[in-house]
């Protein structure tokens, strides 16, 4: 080329540097004028040699002597060859789009920045940020830079295409020919290099083997490069293939996978190596800390279901003063064992028909869980009345132990019955010819059919001896009885009517007296009857007075009458009128004079404000409190040989007396066996556990006992319905037959997840979800 003639352009005019713009104009004009060989004697002007498109396809050669400024060959065209005869400043070949640029010396920073086509040949070293942001367009050959020595820092940042070759001959930085942190952000292209380096962006670039094709390309193009920079002499030393290395961009997929140590490896090889097996607290606990799923089985369940059959009392059983397991009777009914259901009652009471069927206000029904859902309680009276058929239980052989029971009323009969069932002989002492107490003597037949009562009393009399006392017991006789028997039970009731201490009190007849006489039709109450005390007994008086022909029946009380139930209903049916508050001033011939001055006319005035016990006959050793006998939880009086039950202890319902008798009998039986009596402590079930939704709420009456049984929710007592088995999503529940009709429901802990569905679905509240044992 040197042999040809160059059109010369000088960077100075008249000794003064011309502006880059003027120099550019001169070059462009020269090219327009057909000059194809141009020599520029530069004086620091920038951007020389770029943008020479006016030459079209013709090749233009620009030789730069002197001192070139920045951006030589920037925006270069493919038709252009730029040859810088000495070192070059910054940004050589910036945005080069195809020109070939030869630098016969070192080049500054930013060489080939954003170059997309063309070649830059450098005969020396280059500064920082060479080959950054380079591109490669598939329509053209990729850009190339060739550097004979070394490159400066941050080489190849964000390189997106092109090929860089760094030969490492006479490098400026012999220890590291690639400079500091090369190839950060590289996404495309290749870098061939030869010589030592201090690392590159491993996240962006990777070393790959030099293929034969690569090697062929390198050696072929090397010749051209060395020729251009006049360093053919270096060729031999550059042809040792093993001295070359090749870096290429990682693919996006590879970038994600830049190898860091895995946490698992860190834990095993570093963490636990330093801390010891088990890590941070491996020395403090042996608990397994491996991961578990959110839904767990077995020991890992937070909550576990428990089959709590019969753990709690049903409300009916719990509230029945006699303690009859009512639900159990309905279970027997459901199982078709109606006889057993009937017979069961005699275990608890000698009066299943009389009391449960007729006289009892049935606390069991009042407490029935069904009431919570405003549903009809299960009608026990149906089963009660059927109990007249109950089969006499078998009584054990007598133990030889004897207990005297003073009083043949419900309390006395109950304890005697229970003691006999336990094998002890109980002898009833009573002033009446027949036993039965108030049930027999004062309760109107309208409320209890005679044949029912008689049948039950006969059933009792067949096993309980009765001694008819001709006269009231005194203290001495009582002491003697106590001495003759193992235990003495006082069940004499409350026989002494309470009287109002008002003028004319002698004109009043007591309710007990009235009722007893009425029962044998031995009294004529007249047309007008006033009853002082509007309780249930007062109601019975009114009913009986009505039956005996009274037309005006008035019950007065100092407060809202406490009467309820059948007694009240029957009295009202007879036309009884209730009036309160009324305070009696005097009983006159005309009737009852109130403190207000009002006179309630009466032919008969009945006083019915309750009865108090007569405790005169009891020995001193028996403590009396406010007129009643004081007892402990086992109905034992302050005299440990004497028990007391019934109204003499506390006024109550018939069923209370029955229950007291049963509990006292149990205590005596225990003591006779040489054991300490115990109080049964079984709580009542939380009715929230019962699912009434299974039952029809629109039932207004029960057809028969079967219907009753079917609607009983059997609170706390498994109905054996198997809903739990069906609902369990894990099929973890099964029914286990224990033989002899016994069974239990069991949980396979390896399947159970503790969802509590069994507890949610159980109609009877048997299943309970409870916290699993503490693991911490």
């Amino acid at each position, binding site marked *: 080329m040197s042999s040809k003639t160059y059109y010369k352009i000088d960077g100075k005019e008249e000794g003064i540097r011309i502006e880059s713009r003027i120099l550019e104009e001169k070059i462009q004009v020269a090219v327009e004028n057909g000059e194809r060989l141009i020599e520029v004697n530069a004086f620091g002007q920038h951007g020389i040699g770029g943008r020479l498109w006016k030459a079209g396809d013709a090749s233009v050669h620009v030789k730069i002597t002197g001192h070139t400024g920045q951006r030589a060959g920037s925006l270069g065209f493919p038709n252009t060859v730029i040859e810088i005869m000495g070192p070059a400043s910054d940004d050589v070949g910036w945005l080069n789009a195809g020109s070939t640029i030869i630098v016969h010396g070192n080049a500054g920073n930013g060489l080939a920045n954003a170059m997309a086509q063309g070649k830059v040949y450098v005969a020396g070293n280059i500064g920082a940020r060479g080959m950054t942001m380079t591109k490669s367009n598939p329509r053209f050959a990729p850009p190339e830079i060739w550097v004979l020595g070394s490159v400066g820092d*941050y080489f190849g*940042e*964000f390189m997106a295409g092109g090929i860089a070759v760094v030969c490492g001959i006479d490098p400026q930085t012999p220890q590291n020919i690639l400079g500091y*942190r090369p190839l*950060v*952000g590289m996404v495309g292209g290749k870098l061939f290099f030869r010589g030592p380096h201090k690392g590159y962006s491993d996240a962006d670039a990777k070393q790959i083997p030099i293929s034969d094709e690569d090697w062929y390309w390198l050696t072929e193009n090397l010749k051209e490069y060395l020729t251009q920079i006049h360093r053919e002499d270096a060729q031999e030393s550059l042809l040792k293939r093993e001295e070359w290395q090749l870096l290429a961009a990682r693919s996006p997929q590879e970038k994600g996978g830049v190898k*860091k*140590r895995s*946490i*698992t490896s*860190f*834990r095993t090889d*570093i*963490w636990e190596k*330093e*801390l*010891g097996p088990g*890590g*941070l*607290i*491996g*020395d*403090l*606990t042996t*608990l397994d*800390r*491996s*991961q*578990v799923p*959110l*839904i*767990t089985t077995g020991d*890992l369940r*937070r*909550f576990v279901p428990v089959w709590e059959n019969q753990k709690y009392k049903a409300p009916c059983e719990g509230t029945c003063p006699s303690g009859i397991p009512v639900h159990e009777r309905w279970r027997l009914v459901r199982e078709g064992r109606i006889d057993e259901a009937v017979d069961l009652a005699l275990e608890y009471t000698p009066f299943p028909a009389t009391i449960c069927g007729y006289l009892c206000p049935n606390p069991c029904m009042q407490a029935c869980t069904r*009431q*919570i*859902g*405003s549903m009809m309680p299960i009608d026990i009276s149906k089963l009660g009345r059927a109990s007249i058929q109950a089969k006499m239980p078998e009584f054990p052989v007598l133990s030889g132990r004897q207990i005297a029971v003073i009083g043949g009323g419900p309390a006395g009969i109950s304890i005697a019955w229970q003691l006999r069932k336990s094998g002890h002989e109980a002898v009833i002492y009573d002033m009446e010819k027949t036993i039965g107490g108030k049930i027999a003597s004062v309760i109107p037949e309208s409320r209890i059919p005679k044949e029912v009562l008689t049948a039950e009393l006969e059933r009792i009399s067949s096993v309980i001896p009765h001694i008819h006392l001709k006269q009231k017991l005194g203290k001495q006789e009582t002491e003697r009885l106590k001495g003759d028997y193992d235990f003495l039970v006082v069940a004499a009731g409350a026989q002494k009517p309470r009287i109002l201490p008002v003028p004319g009190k002698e004109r009043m007849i007591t309710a007990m007296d009235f009722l007893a006489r009425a029962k044998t039709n031995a009294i004529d109450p007249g047309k007008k009857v006033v009853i002082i005390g509007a309780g249930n007994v007062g109601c019975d008086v009114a009913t009986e007075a009505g039956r005996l022909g009274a037309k005006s029946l008035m019950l007065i009380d100092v407060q809202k009458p406490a009467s309820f139930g059948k007694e009240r209903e029957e009295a009202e049916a007879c036309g009884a009128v209730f009036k309160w508050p009324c305070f009696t001033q005097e009983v006159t011939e005309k009737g009852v004079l109130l403190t207000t001055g009002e006179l309630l006319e009466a032919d008969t005035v009945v006083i019915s404000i309750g009865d108090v016990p007569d405790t005169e006959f009891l020995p001193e050793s028996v403590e009396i409190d406010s007129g009643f006998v004081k007892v402990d939880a086992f109905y034992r009086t302050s005299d440990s040989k004497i028990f007391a039950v019934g109204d003499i202890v506390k006024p109550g319902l018939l069923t209370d007396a029955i229950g007291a008798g049963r509990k006292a009998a149990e205590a005596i039986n225990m003591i006779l066996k040489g054991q300490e009596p115990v109080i049964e402590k079984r709580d009542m079930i939380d009715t929230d556990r019962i*699912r*009434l*939704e*299974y039952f029809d*709420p629109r039932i207004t009456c029960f057809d028969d006992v079967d219907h009753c049984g079917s609607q009983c929710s059997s609170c706390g007592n498994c109905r054996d319905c198997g809903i739990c088995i069906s*609902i369990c*999503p*894990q099929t973890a529940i099964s029914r286990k037959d224990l033989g002899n009709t016994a069974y239990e429901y069991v949980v396979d802990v390896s399947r159970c*997840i*503790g*969802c*509590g*569905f069994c*507890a*949610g*679905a159980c*109609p009877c509240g048997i299943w309970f979800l409870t916290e*699993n044992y*503490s*693991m*911490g």
Partner: protein
Amino acid sequence: MSANRPVTPSTLSIKDLPWQIRWSKEKCTLCGSCTAVCPVHALELGVFRKRVVESSIDIKQTSSNVFKIYHGIRQKTDPQHACVGCGMCTMMCPNDAIIPARSDEADKLIYHQNQGGQPRRRGGRRNVVGGILDQIKFIRISMLTDPALDAGRHEFELRTLLGRILSPEDNLKHLKANGWIPPVREIYPLIIGGMSFGALSPTMWEGLQMGVAYLNEEMKMPVRMCTGEGGCPPRLLRSRFLQYVILQIASGYFGWDEIIHAIPDMKVDPCAVEIKYGQGAKPGDGGLLMWYKVNKLIAAIRGVPVGVSLPSPPTHQTQYSIEEAVAKMTQSMYMAWGFRVPVYPKISASSTSLSVLNNLTRNEYAAGLAIDGEDGGTGAAYNVSMNTMGHPIASNLRDCYLNLVKLGKQNEIPLFAGGGVGKTGNLAANAAALIMLGASGVQTGKYIMQAAAGCLGSESDRCNICNVGLCPKGITSQDPRLYRRLNAEDVAQRVVDVFLSFDTELKKIVAPLGRSTSLPIGMSDALGISDYHASERLSIKYVV
């Protein structure tokens, strides 16, 4: 409720509850997963009665009435079993049949969470959304002025200093006069704030520590984590990982005997000692580890009986004045490690913060001051403390920093800010804002719980049952059945992810400031806010 039952004042309906379970009968397969996973037993299988009336007006046909039963998921309404909105049911449901929804009605439950006269206690954070930190913008973006740096390309050395930083001259003077130089640590500016072993589950705590160790040893990021007040497992005390740990001493002094016993065996010094005087989540109140969480392991580490609640007093019982507290405790803690370990107090942000700071400036031992703002989280506190007590961090920190500037000590006593950093997920932005307001570094806890372990808590009062140890993710539970849901390695991995991404985001913010090797601490000219009063209060630019 049943037809025939009376209501009580606290009888609530689903409508009254803040979280209401939406359940689809059609989609539900009755698998039991939701009731099994529900942490508070808010769900149960319900038995439902469905009545169908077949009506007929044709006189020849009688109308009929049929009851049918179906089973489904029922939400309990008593306050003890009110849904907490955690959504674990939704997570477990195979058929997407169930989801808790926030009520559109004013909360009625709030009036009934004081049964038995016990005010509500809970874990979590202040139930107030937003905060000033998210409103702060970074307005100084250098393009052609400062050397604008590229977060993705340039090298950054984002480090901060923890310790009393004296000039070389002063250090020499100090050395000559006192025989020692205040120790200073170069650490990463984002610190995992004090969450105790006990408040957190063993798996969570180990995961955090492991992640921190990984960041230090594999990623060369000097990240530090504070133990909180609950002691430190003996093995950690005797390992080289202790250097990544800031030991906390607080008013309950739990676990310090183990730390003292370990001192002779320590391979390395701990990074620092933090003396906790206050906590942002519950200023004026001490720690409150409830008995549910004090099992054998926790009891052993803390040196207390099993199954007792561990309230820490609100103050250090034997410290009667700032002077005494700072002088006595700080000096004693320095002595423990031969004056090689920086010791600094942590207080809850308060109108008294400046007094504490001023006192520290006169105390040659104070290695810094950590200030915890009202938006801090906690494992257990009284709701009233959490929701209503405390001071926002931004202005409190700013006041303290500007006060240091006034005293010419802004480069001497580093301030560390916490409480609501990353409250809405903008961890790096919030941290950068605090740094530019004057913090040398920030502490974060809640963000880590959420990002590293999937904590479900939110300002909508979601979940927040950390205090009773029922954490459905196993983050704050001491029950193996719950904490084994969490894998320590997963937590560690997430800690690493969080810090790496935080690092990039912080770089994105500081790069345009031309900062790559020193944090722009107090560089408040880079901050702007569209709230005029806030701009005045914080002395930053008002931009609209």
